[in-house]
Each structure stands twice: as C-alpha cells, then as structure tokens.
C-alpha cells in the first residue's frame, strides 16, 4: 500500500463518511431533542431506530415487492411507514415508562433504569416476533436500481443508494429545522425545553409537547433505520446498539441538547470513523484492523468528555441551586 493508492481511496472514503455521518446525524437528533426537553438520555432510542429499520424492511419485503412500483417510490413508502410506527412507539414508550416517573418526581436514576429496561425489552420483543416467522436477521431486499451509480470521475463512483440516503437525510434535517424554528409547535417545544413551569403558565400543554418531541425524535430514528438498512444490507433486533452509542457520541460531540450541534457532530463522527476504518489498517499494517472502528467512536466520546463536555456548539452550563 503506497501513498498514491491511499490517496485514490480518499474521495470514496469521504463520500461513505458523509453518508454514514448523515445517518448518525438523523439518529442523534432524537437523542438531542429528548435531552433538550427533558434532560433525559433516552436509551430506548437505539431500539426505536432498529424497529423503524425492521418495519421498513418488512414493508419492502411483503408489501411492495413485485408490485412493479418504482424503487424510489417503494423506499419512500417504507420510510413513511417506519416514521409512523417508530414515532408511535416512541410516544408509547414515553407514556408507559417515563411519564409516570416524571409526574412522581422520581430520583434521576430511576428513569435511566427504566429506559434501559425498555431498550432490552424491545430488542427481545422484536426478536420474538421475527422468530415466529423464521430467521430474525432480516436482509434488505435487493434493488438493482440502488446499486447503479453515477461516475463523477475515475475514482469517485457514487451509487444511487448513497444519493437516496443523502436526499432523504437532508430533507429530514431541513424539515426538522423548519418545524422547530418557524412553527408555533416548534416554539412551544423550545419554550418547554427552556422552562416547563413557565410554559405551563403561558398555556402550553407541557405533556403534549413532550409527547410531540418523542414523536418527532422517534420518527427521525425510524427513517434513519430504513436508510441504515439500505446502506448496510441487513438488520437484526440487536442492530440498534452500536449505531445508538455512536449517534449518542455524535450528539455529545455537537453539544447535547443542541439541534445544529447534533447534525454537525453526526457528520464529523461519520467522516472520522470511515477515515479511521480505511486508513488505520493501512498505516499499521493490519495490526489494528477494522474491527476496532466500533471502539474508535468510544475513544472520541471519552476525549470530548475530558476536554470539552459541552461539545462543539454547546455552551458550558452551571448548575444553580
């Protein structure tokens, strides 16, 4: 492996990194929104993402397969279904596992533990349902269409699936930004994030706004799930775990609770990870193989927490008594 060959890999690596980064960004939004409003890390978000992906795969496998619909349209249908189901699931989760604790003013540790419980329960529940019908590792249906590619130059060949992911992902980011910053609902959500009591006094239904936050965050997670399945070709009930940790890292990297931060953090982390996965084996002569790429993100998380816990775009917070 010499220098010029390494250089040739660079454009495609960056493209892959961008795609992965967008996926992380869309998942990270779910973490960051809930954190911004409730100050709670929703551990179950990784599973909401996974459920969305599985729903998308099932829609494509049993719903639209063989209907002769255009693949892009099929993907949109799958994404829509995943949005609905994941969003609903996130709302139900909040209703059952978090809201009673919030109303009871439980100590901080308690919702963390239930969140963890919900996450485990969902993993095995999905596995249970899939096991009734056979194998629980679900392959993403093969679309010849998404493997066609655009040649930008000799070394940069972009498959349609990357384009699809970038288009849907960017649409989600723009949609969310509009919703949060330019609508009445978004303003209400921001008010609740700033001060729940004052918002309630101003006539905002706080519980509804919190449910809405979960709905939007969950829907985004579901979309990311389908796109993740498209990119990596298969999903199983335990696929949420690693992307979940990485997306959380992305949210912390950008500054947790900060929406533009989550987008930036996702893209930075995705690019860094793909770069590390490509070049570390080359630089170390395979002593450090690609299997270390999963813990690479974790190292980044530790470094951020040591040097800048508030993240790239976050502001340092001072706890008042």
């Amino acid at each position, binding site marked *: 492996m010499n220098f010029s060959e390494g250089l040739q890999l660079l454009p495609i690596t960056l493209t892959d990194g961008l795609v992965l980064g967008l996926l992380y960004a869309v998942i990270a939004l779910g973490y960051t929104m809930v954190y911004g409003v409730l*100050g*709670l*890390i929703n*551990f179950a978000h990784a599973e909401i993402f996974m459920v969305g992906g599985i729903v998308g795969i099932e829609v494509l496998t049993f719903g639209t397969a063989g209907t002769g619909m255009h693949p892009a349209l099929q993907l949109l249908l799958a994404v829509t279904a995943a949005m609905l189901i994941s969003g609903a699931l996130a709302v139900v989760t909040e209703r*059952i*596992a978090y809201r*009673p*604790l*919030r*109303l*009871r*003013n*439980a*100590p*901080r*540790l*308690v*919702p*963390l*533990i*239930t969140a*963890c*419980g*919900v*996450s*485990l*329960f*969902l*993993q*095995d*529940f999905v*596995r*249970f349902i899939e*096991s*009734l*019908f*056979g*194998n*629980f590792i679900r392959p993403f249906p093969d679309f010849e269409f998404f493997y066609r590619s655009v040649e930008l130059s000799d070394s940069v060949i972009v498959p349609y699936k990357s384009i699809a992911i970038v288009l849907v992902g960017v649409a989600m980011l723009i949609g969310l930004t509009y919703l949060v910053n330019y609508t009445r609902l978004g303003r209400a959500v921001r008010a609740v994030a*700033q*001060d*729940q009591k004052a918002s309630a006094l101003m006539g905002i239904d706080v519980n509804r706004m919190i449910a809405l936050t979960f709905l939007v965050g969950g829907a985004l997670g579901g979309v990311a799930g389908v796109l993740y399945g498209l990119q990596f070709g298969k999903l199983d009930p335990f696929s949420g775990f*690693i992307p979940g*940790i990485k997306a959380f890292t992305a949210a912390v990297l950008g500054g947790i609770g900060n929406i533009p931060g989550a987008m930036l953090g996702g893209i930075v982390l995705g690019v860094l990870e793909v770069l590390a996965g490509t070049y570390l084996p080359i630089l170390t002569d395979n*002593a450090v*193989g690609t*299997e*270390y790429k*999963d*813990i690479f993100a*974790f190292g980044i*998380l*530790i470094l951020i*927490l*040591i040097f800048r*816990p508030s993240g790239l775009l976050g502001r340092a*917070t001072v*706890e*008042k*008594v």
Partner: protein
Amino acid sequence: MMTSELDRPRDWTWWVVAYVIAAIVIKVQVFSGTGLLDTFAFLALLASLFLASSVAMAPWARAAIFVVLLMAVIPYIGLRNTFYLDVVTQVGIFAALALGLNIVVGFAGLLDLGFVAFFAVGAYTWAIFGSAQANQFLSIGATASFFPLPPDFFFVILMLTVIIAATAGVLLGLPVLRLRGDYLAIVTLGFGEVIRVLANNLDKPVNITNGPRGITGIGQPLSSVAKALGTSLIPPFKWQALIYYALVLAVIGLAIFFTRRLDNSKIGRAWVAIREDEVAAQAMGVPLVRTKLIAFATGASFAGVMGALFASKQTFISPESFDFNQSIGVLAMVVLGGLGSVRGAIVGAAIVTILNLQVLKALSTWLNGLRADGVEILGYSLANLPAQFEPSKYERLIFGLILIAMMLYRPQGLVPEKRRAHELARKAGEINISAGAKKL
C-alpha cells in the same frame, strides 16, 4: 414485619427451626434426585436461609441455622449431586457481583451498565497467567514454558486482581465522574463493549488473549487437596466443586462484611449524600470525584475477584462469557432485590440466576417436547415454530421487564433497605425537596 413501635415483634424462632428441619428431611430423604420437584425442595431449603435472616428470632438459632445449612447440609447434598453445588456456586458468584454493583448503583447512585467489564478484567488476569497463554508473549529467560503458574499461585494473583480491577475502575471513572450521571451510564455501556472487542482482537500482532478462541486449561487452586481427598466413592472433581463452593462462600462473607462496614463508615455516608443531592453534599465539603471514584473502584474490585474465581472454576473463558447480557443481568438482580440493600442484592442474585438456569431451561425443554409432538394451540401447530425459537435465549426480555416493572411499581425492591424504601415510596403529591428535576 409491619408492626408498630409498641407491640413487640413476635418471636418466630421455633417455627423457623421446625421449617428448616422439615426442609432438610424432605430434601435429603424424599426428593434426593435432580428432577423438578427435587429442585423445588432444594429451593425451599435455600429459602430458609432468607427466612432466618428476615424474621425476628433468637440470635443463637439464626447463627445455628446458617452454620448447619451452609457448612453441613448443602455440602452433603452437593457431594451427592454436584449439580446443586454448581447452582449454589453460580448464585454465589453473581451475588458477589451484585454486591459490588450495589455499592456503585445502590449506595453512590451511579448507573454502571458495563459492570461485566471488570469481571472480565479479573477473569482474564488469572486466565492468562494461570494457563500456558502467557508464554505467547512473555518468555522469561531461556525457559519458554515458565507458565502456567502453579495453581496455588491463584491466591497471589487474586490480590493482584483487586489492584488491577480497582485501577481499571479509576481510569474509567476519572474522565466521566466529573460529569452528570447520565454520561456515566453510556460511557460504561461503551466500556463494556470495548473490553469485549479487545478480548476478541488482542490475538494479533501479539497474542495476549487468544482472541475469539478463548483460553483453555486454566489452573484450579487447591487441586492437589482435591486429589488427596478423592476416593472411589467421591472422585476429586466433586471435592473440587466443594472447594469452589467454600471459596465463593468466603468471598461473599468478606463482601458482606466490607459492604456493611463501608455503608456505616464516613465513606458510606458520603456516598448516600452524593446520591441524594450532589450539590448539597459538595457544599458540606464532601469531595465529589474522590468519593465517586472510591465507590467505583470498590465495586470493580469485587467484580475482579469474582472474575478470577469464575475463570478458574470454568477452566475455559472466551469473550462470549462477558457480553452485555451479563452486565444487565447483574443490574436486574440489584434492582429486583432493592437498590442499596445488601440482603436484597443476594436475594435478587438468587432469583435471577435460578430463573435463568432452571426455569427458562425447563420451559425450553417443555416447549421442544410440545413441538416434537406437534401440539396445536388455537389451531396453530407448534410443529411450525422455527427451531430458533428458544425461551432460554430471551434473557433480555426478562431483564427488561424486571427493570421497568420494579422501577414503576416497587422502586425500593423486594427486600428494601429501610431508609431507601421510605424515600422511594413517597406518595405522589408529597413534597420532594431533593427531586433532581432541576433543568439546566
């Protein structure tokens, strides 16, 4: 025993003694095999320990019951059937882990989701030096086969394990413990994964952990004693099982002793203070990071010691023994028993371990039987169930339900600690001064 201050609690001494004697007789004479009923008889026997520790009775009787059961009856039953010794030893290993995690989560209120990582650190420490594995990267002088260390070196390494595991705890805790508790949860979660990935991949360029193949031939301490005791009637392996039982019992005893002492010491008070209100504790001069680090290191060292014991008992370990399920299982034990409750941690460990070892396995076997017979439920023939469908693999479902249900309906646990129960069982609407619902 919910009695008011005025009536004296009833003295249950003779009832409990009668129950224990009955349980012993039934187990030894009637149900002496290993079937389902025999297992239940054994559980009834174990339950008498819990009974003796929870009702009001004469101290001499309580001590006598513990000594007779742990030192005589269980070894006797176990030597006839090592299956029972294995069950008790397994429960013991997890009880010690639960005690360790209870210090971290229950006393100090720090949620650690990767506790099994420290267990793995301890296990690999003994596995590498107690087997021929260390020769792969350490050849001292000309003799390339300096390892395995003699099995009885185990006790030396055990001391070392305490230090190594505690150091790992401190190293992990240092960057995170300055921050809010939620970060700790996710970082420990990641750390568990990191340890697993390292164990899986450190077989190249230098073979340290032997990668996914795992390490075999791990030395067993006191095996010479077991050999010497071996007769035609009771072969050495049964004595070895008994030795492990004794070792685990000793570690549990020490763990309970330390936990109780720590809980009532200055450090223990400081843990409770930071659990209840960090800001107030800090204002009263409790050093936050140091106190948290001590909790973390103590919990980690418990896990490390048990890991070393576990490795030598199994004589084989691989990265698969230390997956996320184990961490969550231990957390479920602590939550089920009651956060911050020493007896709760042990009871939780017993319930979860027996559920996993016995009940789910029995359910799997039963279902497989039904599947083979093609029984129909509501017109759905069970023969159509895919072979992948195994109840014994649904640990996470069980753990998840335990965590959610306990936190929603009985946050103080099954065997709560008094002060904690009082604090968590507040009725809704009561004023809660220490509610940590401060928005940042």
